[in-house]
C-alpha cells in the first residue's frame, strides 16, 4: 500500500517536471500517460482498502474508506483533464503558456490528491490552501481582464475563508488537549476516536468555523461568489478540475470535522448546520441556473447545486443518504468533467461562451455534442446515469430519516435545476444549425476524455462494481450511519 500512495503523490510531480520538456508531444503525452497511471494507482488503493480496510503509510499519511472515495474522484478527474489538455494544447504555439498550464495542472492535481491522503488537521488545511494558490495562478494564466478579476476575487475570498478554517484547526487542537494534554500530534483518526471528551461549546464553534471556512472553497451560500467567475474564466481543463474535484476535496475536509463533531456533541447540531447551508446553497443555484447566459457559468452553478445536495444528504444522516452522497461525489466528478470538455468544444466551435451564440450543437459536433447532452442530462439527475441513482438514494434516505420537509424542498429545487439545465441544453444542441457553421469534431483526445466520463456515469448508474458498493457502505458508516 505504501508504494501505491507514494506513486499517487509522485507521478503528478514527475508529470509537472516533464511538462517543461522541449518536445511538445512528449510533454503532452507524458502528462496524459502519467495521469492515467495515477488513476490506476488510486483504483488499486481503493481495492486494497475494500479488501483489507484502512491502511497507513506513516501516521501522517492514511487512507480509509472515506478518503479513497475522494481519491478515486480526484484521480479520475486528473486523468481525463490531462487527456483533454493533450488535445487542447496540440495547436498552441505559445510554448511558455503550454508549459505553465500543463505543469500547473499537474501540481494542482497533486495538491488535491494530497488532501484525502493526509491524516493530520494542519496538513489537511495546508493542502487545501496550496490548492487555492495554484488554482488561482492557473486562472490568472489566461491573461484576460475577466480572468484577472476572477483570480483576484478567488484569492481574496478563499484566503479569508481559509483564515477562518485555520482558526477552526487551532481550536480543534485546543479541544483535543482535553484528551491528550498540551503536546500531541492531531491525527484525524485519533481526534475522531477520542472526541467524546471534548468541550461541547468549543467543538460546536469548531464545526461552524470549519463549515464556513472550508465551505468557502466548496461554494456554500453565501461565500460562493468567487466560484462562477473563476470556473468560467479558467481554461477548460482547469475548470473541470476546479468544479469536479476541488469542491469535492474541500467538502471532504468538512466531512472530517463533521465526523469529529458528531462523535463529540451528537448528530443534531452537525446535521442541522449542514442541512441549513445545503438548502440555502441549493436554492441559490437552482434559481441562478434558470437565468444563465454563459455555458461555463451554467456548469459552475450546477456545481454549486450539487454541493448543496451533498450537504443536504449529510444533513439527513441516514445510511442510504450518506452512501448516496458519496456516490454523488464520484458521479458528479465524471459528469462535470464531461460537461466542461463538451462546453470547451462548443466554445471553440461557436467562437464564444455566450449561450445565444450556440445553436445546432448536435449537428456541428455529432460526437462531443451527444456526449455533452448525456453529461448535462446526468447532471440534471436523469436516468440511467450515476447521479440519478445517488439522488434517488439521498431522497429515500431523507424519507427514512423522517426529514419530509427538507426532502420536499430538495425535490422541488432539483426539479427547478433540471428545467434550467434541460432548457439551455436543448436550445444549444437540438436547434437547427445556423448557416455558415460547418460540421466538425473535437480532437480524439477530447472525445476519449469525454467517453471515459460517459462510461463512468453509465457504470455508476446501472451497476456500480461490488467493491465500490462495499466501500460506499463502509465509508457511510465512518460518517455515523449504522
Amino acid at each position: 500500500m505504501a508504494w501505491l500512495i507514494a506513486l499517487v503523490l509522485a507521478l503528478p510531480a514527475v508529470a509537472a517536471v516533464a511538462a517543461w520538456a522541449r518536445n511538445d508531444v512528449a510533454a503532452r503525452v507524458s502528462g496524459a500517460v502519467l495521469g492515467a497511471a495515477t488513476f490506476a494507482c488510486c483504483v488499486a488503493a481503493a481495492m486494497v482498502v475494500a479488501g483489507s480496510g484502512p491502511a497507513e503509510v506513516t501516521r501522517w499519511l492514511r487512507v480509509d474508506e472515506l478518503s479513497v472515495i475522494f481519491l478515486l474522484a480526484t484521480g479520475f478527474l486528473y486523468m481525463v483533464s490531462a487527456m483533454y489538455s493533450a488535445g487542447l494544447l496540440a495547436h498552441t504555439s505559445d510554448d511558455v503558456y503550454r508549459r505553465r498550464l500543463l505543469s500547473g495542472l499537474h501540481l494542482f492535481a497533486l495538491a488535491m490528491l494530497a488532501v484525502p491522503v493526509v491524516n493530520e488537521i494542519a496538513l489537511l488545511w495546508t493542502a487545501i490552501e496550496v490548492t487555492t494558490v495554484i488554482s488561482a495562478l492557473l486562472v490568472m494564466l489566461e491573461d484576460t481582464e475577466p480572468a484577472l478579476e476572477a483570480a483576484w476575487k478567488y484569492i481574496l475570498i478563499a484566503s479569508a475563508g481559509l483564515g477562518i478554517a485555520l482558526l477552526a484547526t487551532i481550536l480543534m487542537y485546543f479541544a483535543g488537549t482535553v484528551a491528550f494534554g498540551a503536546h500531541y500530534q492531531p491525527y484525524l483518526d485519533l481526534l475522531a476516536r477520542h472526541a467524546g471528551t471534548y468541550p461541547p461549546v468549543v467543538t460546536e464553534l469548531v464545526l461552524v468555523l470549519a463549515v464556513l471556512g472550508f465551505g468557502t472553497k466548496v461554494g456554500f451560500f453565501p461565500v460562493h461568489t468567487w466560484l462562477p467567475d473563476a470556473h468560467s474564466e479558467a481554461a477548460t481543463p482547469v475548470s473541470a478540475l476546479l468544479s469536479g474535484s476541488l469542491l469535492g476535496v474541500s467538502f471532504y475536509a468538512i466531512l472530517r470535522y463533521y465526523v469529529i463533531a458528531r462523535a463529540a456533541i451528537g448528530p443534531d447540531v452537525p446535521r442541522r448546520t449542514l442541512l441549513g447551508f445545503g438548502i440555502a446553497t441549493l436554492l441559490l443555484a437552482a434559481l441562478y441556473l434558470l437565468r444563465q447566459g454563459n455555458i461555463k457559468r451554467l456548469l459552475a452553478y450546477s456545481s454549486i447545486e450539487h454541493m448543496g445536495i451533498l450537504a443536504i444528504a449529510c444533513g439527513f444522516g441516514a445510511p442510504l443518504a450518506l452512501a448516496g452522497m458519496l456516490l454523488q461525489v464520484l458521479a458528479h466528478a465524471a459528469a462535470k468533467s464531461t460537461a466542461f470538455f463538451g462546453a470547451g468544444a462548443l466554445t471553440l466551435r461557436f467562437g464564444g461562451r455566450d449561450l445565444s451564440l450556440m445553436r445546432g450543437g448536435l449537428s456541428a459536433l455529432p460526437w462531443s455534442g451527444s456526449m455533452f447532452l448525456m453529461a448535462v442530462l446526468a447532471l440534471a439527475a436523469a436516468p440511467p446515469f450515476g447521479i440519478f441513482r445517488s439522488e434517488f438514494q439521498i431522497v429515500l434516505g431523507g424519507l427514512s430519516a423522517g426529514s419530509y420537509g427538507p426532502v420536499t424542498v430538495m425535490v422541488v429545487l432539483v426539479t427547478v435545476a433540471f428545467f434550467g439545465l434541460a432548457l439551455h441544453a436543448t436550445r444549444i444542441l437540438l436547434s437547427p444549425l445556423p448557416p455558415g457553421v460547418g460540421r466538425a469534431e473535437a480532437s480524439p483526445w477530447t472525445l476519449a476524455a469525454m467517453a471515459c466520463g460517459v462510461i463512468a456515469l453509465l457504470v455508476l448508474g446501472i451497476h456500480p462494481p461490488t467493491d465500490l458498493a462495499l466501500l460506499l457502505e463502509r465509508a457511510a458508516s465512518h460518517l455515523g450511519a449504522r
Partner: protein
Amino acid sequence: MLAAAPVPSVFNGTAEVLAMVVLLATFAMFRTQLLRAQVKLYAVQSLFVSGLALAAAVTRGESELYVLAVVSAAVKVVAIPAVMRRLLDRIDGSLAGHEAFSVTTAVLVGIAVAAFGFFAVGALEVRTALLPRAALAIGVAVILESFLLMIARTDVPSQAIGFFSLENGVSIAGLVVATGMPLLLELLFLFDLLVAVVAFGVMMRTLHLRSATVSARGLERLRG
C-alpha cells in the same frame, strides 16, 4: 465587603499588553494611506506577535517556542515586508491605497467589530493554563479587524496586508489555546504564508502591468 480582584501575574500582564499592541497596530492600518507605511505597521504587528511567542517560550522554557519566535520574526518581520517593499518599488506610481469608505467610518465600524469579537469570545468557556483569556479575545478581534481591512481597502497590496494581519490574529489565538502544537505544524503555517505572498505578488504585478494601477476598482465586471 467586596472581594479583591485577582492580581494578574507579570506574564499575564505582558501578554495582554503585547496582544493589545497588535490590535492597535491593526487600527493604525485603517488610518494609514501610504502602502509602505502599512507594510511597516505589519512588520511592527508581527514583531509583537513574535514577542508574544517569546514570552510564552520564557514562561514554559520550551525550546520549540523559542524556535517558533525566531522563525516567525524572520518570516513575518523581515521576509514578507521585504518582499512587499520590493513589489511596491516596482509599482512606484501607486504609493497610496484606495478606500471603499472613509477612515472615520472604518475606525468606528472597527471599534464595534473589535468589541463584538472581544465580548463574543468572553462568553465562551475557553480556559487555558498558559495565556490569559483576554489575549484570545484580542486575537479574535484582530481577525475581525483584518476582515474589515480587506473590505475597506480596494487596492491589492492593502488587501494582502489585511490577509497577513488576519494570520497574525490567528497566531495570537494559536499561542493562547494551542501552544503545544508541534513546531513542524506551526512552521507549515508560516511556509504557507510565504506561498500566499507569491500569489498576492503575482496578482499585484499582473494587475499593474495590465492597468498601471494596483487598485481593484476596475475589477467589477463579473457579478458572481
